[in-house]
């Protein structure tokens, strides 16, 4: 004779092969848009941002590389790199033998070639840069290897207008132009502020 079992009174599962799986907590199921873990704020140098081009470490390029978007470069390049008004990040595996032109440059890897930046250059502690640097501001971490010349350019007029923001954003050492002419006195004092922030950060 058939006897009803207690579990027969429960509603039938749609997936009988997974009856033992715990039911997710109703809070998570009801509100999937609420993250259960704190989400990390993406860093500025985050290489996988959607609007940043990415060249992986196995990629080798010989020739001229130009672009009109930010680029994370972890491969090898021989030739020239021209990003004009955009940022370039050289990853830790990046090996560049090229003249580089960009707005901002962050270097974790190795560069052999001259660098021209209209904004800011950051040499991180793992980087090697052999070549001359021409930029408005430069940040060098302890441990970075640099061989060459550093030329701090005068700020152009549009950059001058943005100067207070740029100085406030400077987290590391910034070396500004320090011409002795009176016309650049304001730019010199702004650089002095950023120099102070560098010393504080250490």
């Amino acid at each position, binding site marked *: 004779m058939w006897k009803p079992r207690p579990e027969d009174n429960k509603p039938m599962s749609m997936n009988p092969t997974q009856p033992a799986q715990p039911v997710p907590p109703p809070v998570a199921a009801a509100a999937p848009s609420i993250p259960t873990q704190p989400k990390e704020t993406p860093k500025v140098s985050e290489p996988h941002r959607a609007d940043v081009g990415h060249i992986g470490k196995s990629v080798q390029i010989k020739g001229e590389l130009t672009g009109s978007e930010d680029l994370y470069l972890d491969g090898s390049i021989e030739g020239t790199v021209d990003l004009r008004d955009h940022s370039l990040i050289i990853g830790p595996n990046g090996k560049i033998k090229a003249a580089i032109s960009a707005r901002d440059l962050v270097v974790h890897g190795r560069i052999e070639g001259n660098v021209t930046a209209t904004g800011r250059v950051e040499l991180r502690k793992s980087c090697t840069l052999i070549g001359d640097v021409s930029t408005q501001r*430069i*940040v*060098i*971490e*302890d*441990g*970075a*290897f*640099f*061989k*060459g*010349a*550093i*030329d*701090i350019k005068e700020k152009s007029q549009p950059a001058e207008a943005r100067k207070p923001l740029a100085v406030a954003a400077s987290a590391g*050492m*910034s*070396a*500004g*132009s*320090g*011409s*002795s002419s009176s016309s650049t006195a304001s730019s*010199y004092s702004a*650089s*002095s502020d950023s*120099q102070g922030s*560098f*010393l504080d950060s250490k």
Partner: protein
Amino acid sequence: MSSSGNNLMRWFRGAGGSQSKPQEGGKSAPRTRRTCIGLGEFMRSLSSRGEQKTCVLDLGPTSPTNIALLTEMGVRVFNEDILRESQDESYCVKQEDGTLQFDATKFFAENLDYAADQFDAILFWDVADYLPESLVKPLVERLQAMLKPKGHLLAFFHTKDAGAESLYSRHHIVQKDTLELEPIQGFKLQRIFNNRHIENLFKDFASRKFFLGRDNIREVLMVR
């Protein structure tokens, strides 16, 4: 280099002829500060050259502090860590007896390739005490050629009392007359220069000014 010069260099060679290659990115000990009269004079000489962009060559390990301070002054900074470069074994040539001899010509083919009279000032620090012997004299001659007339060169030398275990240091200019010394492991003191050796080595410079510090460092400010 003349034979008498060779003999002189051999005579004052210090502890050990061979130099161990430093560890990559050698570990650093805590920093110490020292007031530096020679540096104060050096910086004053830079400030007085206001008519055009001054060029300074820093021959020590890359120091962000130095680059910051000098560029703030409107100086164009050149940096070459020549001691680290000199540790590259590719610059050594095998002799008939199997020993390795440092080849200065090979070294200068790839380093310090600058025009004559290019620099207003050179920061030599204490590099000379640690360099391979066959590089010291040709290097000083090269530096003299690279300096402009009346250009300044600042060098430090350990005195005998400093001891053979004196560590090579990275020099950070924290103020115009104050240095922060960051010892770097992996380099061995090669020799001790006394005043006469220094005068002989830099004899083609117009003047040499000596400052003896309490910490057994002799500061010398040379003017071409």
